[in-house]
Structure formats: structure tokens, C-alpha cells
């Protein structure tokens, strides 16, 4: 153990003098996380309801106690920028248009009389062809909730004064619940929940650049050859080499998480809440770090030169990141690609973090994904041990 720690200390000393490597490991994921959180805000969160213009076309008066006024008041609570007009202006760039039937009061009364929420087929919603499906579903949900709210309020006013005192909560406050189930029960991460783990993992796998540098440098310099005549074993050397990079990986994630917890919320107004199992976070991070360092070790054992290792390493990490859902979330991929995703260790790491941050699962529930990471790491280490070369020509 003492010999391993001597090698660990030595490697850390060399690594901390390599400013370029440190910049790559910390600044690259940091910049990606910050910029992509901003850039992808509308991808991971529907922009509908954030002062999005909603054109309401009606020929009825939309003031006072009219059904139109009640409905539009309800819709305002979802933060639409409402434009109530008799007909759409010719050159408008409307994305959302709600066409209310004439005499909507009668439609509402019919619904109320039925004492149930029938499909509101007489109200027409027109969408911009480019508007995504989740946003369309969201608008429909807002409309249904608004109608539902109106009906309940009317029911409440009719019951007022009667012996039955029913307390009915304004359903519009459940709008958040509807937002979360916009895609048929699939919970969508907010940009911070997605980008922090995704790009941290990406940066962690780039540990292969300094790790392969270290391994290939020692092989090229003849240091490995010299160390073979020392009273140390191959495993002393391999562990001494990968532990420092494992530590750097954990530090990388800690820094990115701190940015996600303390800086990004101030810049974006979004949250990466702390309501998760910290033991699970540690387990996922350690497993991901081991996977990343094992992959670096594997590449270093096959590559002949640093140039080869860098070119193949960077290319392979980008490919693993693409299929692993880092660059394009796996839930938007077609079925076949979602199956291919499972080949990437970044997929298991990212899904484990999303299980924790978004789905709020426990360590026990996340363990299968951690086992996949550990399995990948073990296989990579065993192949590396078999392929390990002490000298350039051995």
C-alpha cells in the first residue's frame, strides 16, 4: 500500500504542474455546463406558458362575468401573453391560437349540466407547425384545466349557503403537475439536472488524455523498465497510476456539482435541489470515476503513441457521449438508438444521475446501473492488465 501511495503522490505532483491538462479537465466541462444550460433551456423545458403569445379569437364579449372572460382569466394564470381579438391580424406570427365558438356560454352550460368533463371539441386550438408535440400537449392541458377550474368554481358558487360545505381548491395550482407529465408520464429534467451530470461525465472520461500521457510517457522514457527491477509489482504500478486520476475525476464532479448547486440557479432561476440520497450520489460518482479511469487505462495499453491515444481517445469519448445520451438525450432517440445507448458507460452514469436528481430514486433502486458501470470497469481493467506493456517494444 505504501508503494502505491508513493506512486499516487508522484503522479499527482506531475499532474498538478500540467496546467493544460488541468484546464482541459476542469474548464472544458465547466464551460460546456454553463453555456449549454443556457442554450438548452427551451429543449428540456417547454417555453409554453412563459409569456408565450396566445391569440384568443372570439366574437363574444370577453368582459365581466362572461364565460370567455372567466376562461381567459384562468389561462392568464399559466403566464400566457393573451391577445383577445375578433379575428387574427393578417401578418401576425402567432404560434398558438384558440378559436372560441360563438356563444361559448352555452357550451359551458352544457358541460356543467353533464356534470362531467366532456371533450371540448367546440373549442379549436391552432398550432404553429413547428411547435413540438410536448408544447402542444401542454397547451391542451392548460385549456382543460382552465375549463375544469371554471366548472368547479361555478359548482362551488351554487353550493354556497347549502348544508354541504365543500372546500374545493383551485385546480390551476396543479399546473406544475401537468407540466411534469406532459410526455405521457415521462419526467423531464430541467437543463441543470441534465447538463451537470451529462457534461461532468463527458469531462470525466477525458481523463484518458492525461492518463494515457502518463502511461505512454513512462513507457517511452524507460521508467517502467527501470521500475521492473525494483521490488514492486505490476499491480502496484497500475493502481498507483489510476488512483490519482480517479481522485481528479471525483474532484471534477464535485466542482461541476457545486456550480450546478450554487452558481447556475442564480444565473438561470432553475434549481438542482438537494433533496436526494447523498450516499447514492457518492456511489454513482465513484463508479463513474472508476469507469472513466479504467477506460483511459485500456486506451493507454493499446495505443503505441500519445498521438494515437489522444486521437482515438477523444473520438471514442465523443461517440460514447453521443450514443450515451450526453449530447442528445436518449429519451428523444428512436428505439434502436436507445438500445445502442446501453453500450456506452456514459449512458449508465447519466441515467444513474438522472434517477437520483430527477426521478429521486434511492440507492437500492439505482444499484443496477452502478453494477453496469462497475462491470465495465472490471472488464476494462482485466483487459488492460493482460495488454499492459512495460516497454515500447514488448
Amino acid at each position, binding site marked *: 500500500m505504501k508503494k502505491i501511495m*508513493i506512486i499516487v503522490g508522484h503522479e499527482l*505532483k*506531475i499532474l498538478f504542474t500540467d496546467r493544460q491538462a488541468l484546464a482541459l479537465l476542469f474548464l472544458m466541462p465547466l464551460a460546456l455546463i454553463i453555456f449549454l444550460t443556457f442554450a438548452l433551456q427551451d429543449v428540456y423545458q417547454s417555453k409554453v406558458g412563459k409569456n408565450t403569445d396566445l391569440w384568443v379569437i372570439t366574437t363574444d364579449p370577453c368582459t365581466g362575468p362572461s364565460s370567455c372572460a372567466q376562461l381567459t382569466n384562468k389561462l392568464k394564470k399559466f403566464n400566457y401573453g393573451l391577445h383577445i381579438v375578433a379575428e387574427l391580424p393578417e401578418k401576425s406570427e402567432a404560434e398558438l391560437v384558440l378559436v372560441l365558438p360563438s356563444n361559448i356560454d352555452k357550451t359551458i352550460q352544457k358541460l356543467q349540466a353533464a356534470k362531467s368533463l366532456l371533450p371540448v371539441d367546440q373549442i379549436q386550438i391552432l398550432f404553429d407547425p413547428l411547435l413540438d408535440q410536448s408544447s402542444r400537449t401542454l397547451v391542451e392541458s392548460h385549456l382543460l384545466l382552465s375549463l375544469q377550474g371554471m366548472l368547479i368554481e361555478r359548482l362551488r358558487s351554487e353550493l354556497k349557503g347549502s348544508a354541504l360545505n365543500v372546500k374545493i381548491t383551485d385546480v390551476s395550482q396543479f399546473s406544475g403537475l401537468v407540466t411534469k407529465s406532459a410526455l405521457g408520464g415521462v419526467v423531464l429534467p430541467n437543463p441543470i439536472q441534465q447538463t451537470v451530470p451529462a457534461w461532468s461525465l463527458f469531462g470525466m472520461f477525458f481523463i484518458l488524455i492525461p492518463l494515457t500521457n502518463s502511461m505512454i510517457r513512462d513507457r517511452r522514457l524507460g521508467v517502467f*523498465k*527501470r521500475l521492473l527491477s*525494483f*521490488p514492486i509489482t505490476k499491480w502496484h504500478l497500475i493502481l498507483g497510476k489510476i488512483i490519482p486520476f480517479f481522485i481528479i475525476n471525483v474532484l471534477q464532479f464535485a466542482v461541476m456539482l457545486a456550480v450546478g448547486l450554487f452558481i447556475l440557479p442564480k444565473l438561470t432561476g432553475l434549481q438542482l435541489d438537494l433533496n436526494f440520497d447523498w450516499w447514492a450520489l457518492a456511489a454513482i460518482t465513484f463508479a463513474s470515476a472508476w469507469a472513466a479511469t479504467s477506460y483511459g487505462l485500456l486506451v493507454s495499453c493499446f495505443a503505441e503513441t500519445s498521438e494515437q491515444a489522444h486521437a482515438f481517445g477523444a473520438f471514442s469519448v465523443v461517440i460514447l457521449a453521443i450514443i450515451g445520451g450526453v449530447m442528445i438525450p436518449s429519451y428523444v432517440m428512436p428505439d434502436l438508438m436507445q438500445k445502442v445507448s446501453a453500450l456506452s458507460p456514459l449512458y449508465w452514469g447519466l441515467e444513474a444521475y438522472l434517477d437520483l436528481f430527477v426521478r429521486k430514486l434511492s440507492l437500492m433502486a439505482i444499484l443496477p446501473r452502478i453494477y453496469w458501470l462497475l462491470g465495465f470497469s472490471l472488464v476494462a481493467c482485466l483487459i488492460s492488465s493482460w495488454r499492459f506493456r512495460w*516497454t515500447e517494444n514488448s
Partner: protein
Amino acid sequence: MKYAIDIQALELQYAGSNRKALTNLNLQIARGSFFGLLGPNGAGKTSLISFLCGQIETNSRTQYQKAEILGYDRQQIKNYKSKLGYAPQEIALYPTLTVLENLTYFARLMQAPFIEVARVIDWVGLGDRKNSKVSELSGGMKRRLNLGVALLNRPELLILDEPTVGIDPESRNFIFEKLLELKNEGVTLIYSTHYLEEVKKLCDQTGVLLGGRMIAIGPRAEIFGEGDLEKRYLELTGVETV
């Protein structure tokens, strides 16, 4: 124990190769000898050194009747590694670290006390450059330091693989003097080289390898006589390149 190295019928073959790197090799080196190992490129010098230093794992492709190094069987390599010093042909040092940092790192791995670091710095004559980065040293200084690392554990057996390649005559002479000092202290030295004049100047025992076979071994004077070393070498090996 008369011999520092006593090897009989060593056969060594690398994985994936259909040719033996060492064939029926017999080698006995008495303690305190200065043994010059000669042979053209590809003769098997590096393979022999790798075997002695433990850089080749013993397996079905490595066979021998006897292989004792410092009195221990080759299988018990752990027991003699602490008494072994090895200076590879490459400058196996970290160029971004200082002389002191390099020596300290290797000394700690060898479990040598820190006082040995100070001794070696003095021995290689780099006292005034101990805080210089290795990349800032001259070729001769790097060679001296490369040799110095192999002495941190005060070895009984020192194996040197072409330790004077590419250095100036001054540094070469410095290294020669220091190596003869070690011989006088009783250290056994194995010195692999392409320079015949170095063998003439330093070695009392010599072995010539060719195609993985030891074609000549014994006192230098017996093998080479006092005449033209190069001519005798060419007669032995039949090759023009030393």
C-alpha cells in the same frame, strides 16, 4: 557463494515469435567481476538483461536447468531485487522534475533511506545542480544521474545497458572512474556495450552473444588477447557491425 550469476541451459522465447531470443545459454559470473557483454544488434543482450532484472516473466517459453542470481533462484526474484541495480539504456528519468525529486521518488520506491539520495547526488557530482530540472541538464549529466538512480539501494549486482551512449569524453571518463570504484568495493558489474575499447579498459570478464547463443565467454585477456580487439571480435561474430 562464488557466483553472482549462475545460469545453465537458458532458453527464452517471446510470445508471438517463432524464434528463440536465447538458446542453451550458460553464464557464470564470479562475484566482484566486471563483466562486459558484447554482441551485435539483435544478439540477445537486452533479452538476457531483461531476464536477469526480472523484466521477463518466467513461463513455459522460458526454461532453464539452473538460474541463480545472487544465490537466489530466478523464481525468487523478490529476494534479490533489493540487491539489484539496473541502469537502462534510456534516460529513464522525469524531465520536468528536479534531480532531487527524481532521486527521492525512486529512493522511496526502493525503500532506501533519504541519506542515500544525498550520497548519490554527491557520487554523480550533481550537488550544485540538485534543484535543476532534468530537462535542463547536459547529456552527460543525465547519464550520470541515470546511473545514480541504480545505486540508491547500494546494489551487490549492477547491470548497465549501454550507459555511455551519446555522451562527451569527459562524462564518459567520469563514469568509468566511478564504475571502477564500485568494482573495487566488491560490486559485480554487467556492462552491455557496443564499444570495444570500453571493454578493454574496464572489464576483466567478457561474453559475446550472437543469435541468442553465448559464442565466447571467459577472461577478457583469453578471449581477445592483447591485440586488435575489433579484428578478434569480427573473427568471433562474423559481422562487421559491433
